[in-house]
């Protein structure tokens, strides 16, 4: 599952609240209908590791495992050691000595070895090169396939998330505004490039679609629910040009967060 939102939307805050690092102003965090504050042992089922914001710096990679072993009863030390070996990481090196990419990898190794069925990853691809990103994607996919682990991944890297998540939550102003199931969405939604006669942007475009880009008279519009009725209405508006484009998560993100002013659209049209 992906968690998408603009900077400051509250993605990291949500994660920190879920794991009880922050105290919620209201509401409860539940696992299987049980409050994790009342039953703190349930937090062993959820792991959130933000290496930049934890104490890791001066500890060796093996020592970090000792801490997690005490906190997570299901922690698999052998698996963690295997992962370190597989990626040629020396367990005696301190976390602070590692590059940003390897630090991110170690955090994921710890999360996977923790045995927690719910893993929260905050910007796991941030500032990483393509090879490390690919390695992380590979790890996540194999973990989901082999251990049925559920991931909640907050990321700005929507291309990467597009291939990983089957469900995406949109966070806006501290609230989940949309919960998209990507497969369903791909069946229902379309992205169209449209050109209408001068001075006209039909109502159907503004009511059923979201204009994510304008270039001269060319509008790029995302229709979240492109029903036959909507398609008929668009055709009835007699566009000069109508072309369907491939829809991805970035388009959904733009549709959610970018709203060109009507005047601007009309002027360009």
């Amino acid at each position, binding site marked *: 599952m992906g968690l998408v939102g603009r900077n400051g939307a509250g993605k990291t805050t949500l994660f*920190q609240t879920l*794991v*009880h690092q922050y105290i919620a*102003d209201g509401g409860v965090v539940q696992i299987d209908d049980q409050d994790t504050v009342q039953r703190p042992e349930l937090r062993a089922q959820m792991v959130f590791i933000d290496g930049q914001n*934890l*104490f890791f710096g001066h500890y060796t990679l093996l020592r970090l495992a000792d*801490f997690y072993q005490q906190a997570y009863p299901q922690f698999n030390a052998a698996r963690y050691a295997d992962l370190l070996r597989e990626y040629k990481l020396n367990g005696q090196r301190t976390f602070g000595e590692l590059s940003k990419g390897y630090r991110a990898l170690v955090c994921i190794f710890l999360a996977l070895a923790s045995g927690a069925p719910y893993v929260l990853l905050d910007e796991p691809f941030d500032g990483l090169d393509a090879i490390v990103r690919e390695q992380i994607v590979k790890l996540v996919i194999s973990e989901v396939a082999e251990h049925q682990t559920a991931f909640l991944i907050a990321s700005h890297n929507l291309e990467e998330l597009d291939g990983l998540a089957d469900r995406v939550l949109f966070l806006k102003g501290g609230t989940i505004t949309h919960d998209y199931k990507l497969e369903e969405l791909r069946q229902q939604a379309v992205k169209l490039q449209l050109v209408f006669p001068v001075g006209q942007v039909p109502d159907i475009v503004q009511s059923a679609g979201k204009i994510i880009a304008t270039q001269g008279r060319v509008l790029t519009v995302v229709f979240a629910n492109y029903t036959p009725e909507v398609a008929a209405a668009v055709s009835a508006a007699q566009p000069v040009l109508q072309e369907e484009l491939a829809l991805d998560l970035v388009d959904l993100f733009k549709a959610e967060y970018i709203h060109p002013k009507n005047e601007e659209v009309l002027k360009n049209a």
Partner: protein
Amino acid sequence: MHKDELGKMLWLRHRWVYALLVVLALGSALYSTTTTIDNYHQSASYARSAATKHKNGKRGAFNDQKYRKIMKEQAVIFTTENAEGTSGTKAIPYNVQSSGAVTSYMMLILAATLGIALVSWDRLGKFERFLYASPFARRRIYWQRFGQGLGALLCATTAFYLLTFGALFTMVPAQYVNITVFGMLQIWVYNLVADSALYAAASWLALIFSNPLVTSVIGIIGFVLLDAFQGAVQIIFAAIKHPTWSRAIEFGGIALRSPGRYWLTGLLVMIIGAVVFAFWGAPIFARSSSENTSHILAFPPMKWPLIVIMAVLGSSYAFDYYDFRTSGILVGAIFRMVLVGLIIGFCMWGLLSFGSIRRRWISRRNAKLKLKA
């Protein structure tokens, strides 16, 4: 989750702090003991030379009687002979106090530092975030850490006195270390309690202020003001001719300074203080959010009580250091102006703080209303 898993986790994190604590305790014991033993040797040397008369440029005969007399007067390090002492106690004689072995200020500083270090290091070092996210209840984490630190402190204090007394008994002739086992136990117990009380108070302060520097400064100011407050109250009780309360409050204010007097009263006050601070710390830790990791108050509702305490202590500080009897009207007037200014200053600070608390509260309330809507 088992308790020992949490204990192991905390031990992994803090064991070097504990090791350093014990090393520093032993180091300071060694230093103070070396000084005491050196004093003994100097006294012995002086007594020896005084007992040896110089006559016609030649060394005279050694006068053993005179030597013994001087040594008895000067070189006795611990004694129970002068039981009343100048402080008037039978429990711990004055000259034991003055030797520096009764209340080790170094141990007190170490105790306070340990309290601040454990809390601040975990918070600023972001270990606390890991603890909060771990499957342990916050109160359990608090008590486990507090208990482990206390255990380490008790070990360090015990090591301190074992080394102190051990070195004295082995390196100074027994007749000059004239203290009973009961006396040593009293000193040990007294210090265990004093160190624990300061450790609990420092932990409590660190939980509120987070930043170790701010905590230390506030702690020192608070300690000095508390001392002044005790002095001021003592003056009041002395003025109304109530010596019993005067003495009791003297000890309640700053028992650490005069352990020879009112031993049991002091012990009791410090135990109560330690318990209050320890139990008060638990809900503060349980309600702390990692959002507050800077130097600001981790627990905003504490601002007002702190302002009131500082205002009272500040006023009494000024009161304590002003001698009304010998000063003129002008000095009196200036003193009152300073006092009023101080109180107004605290109130202004309080109002400003209240403003920020109120703004934060309104912002949170609006956010909640928005969520409900």
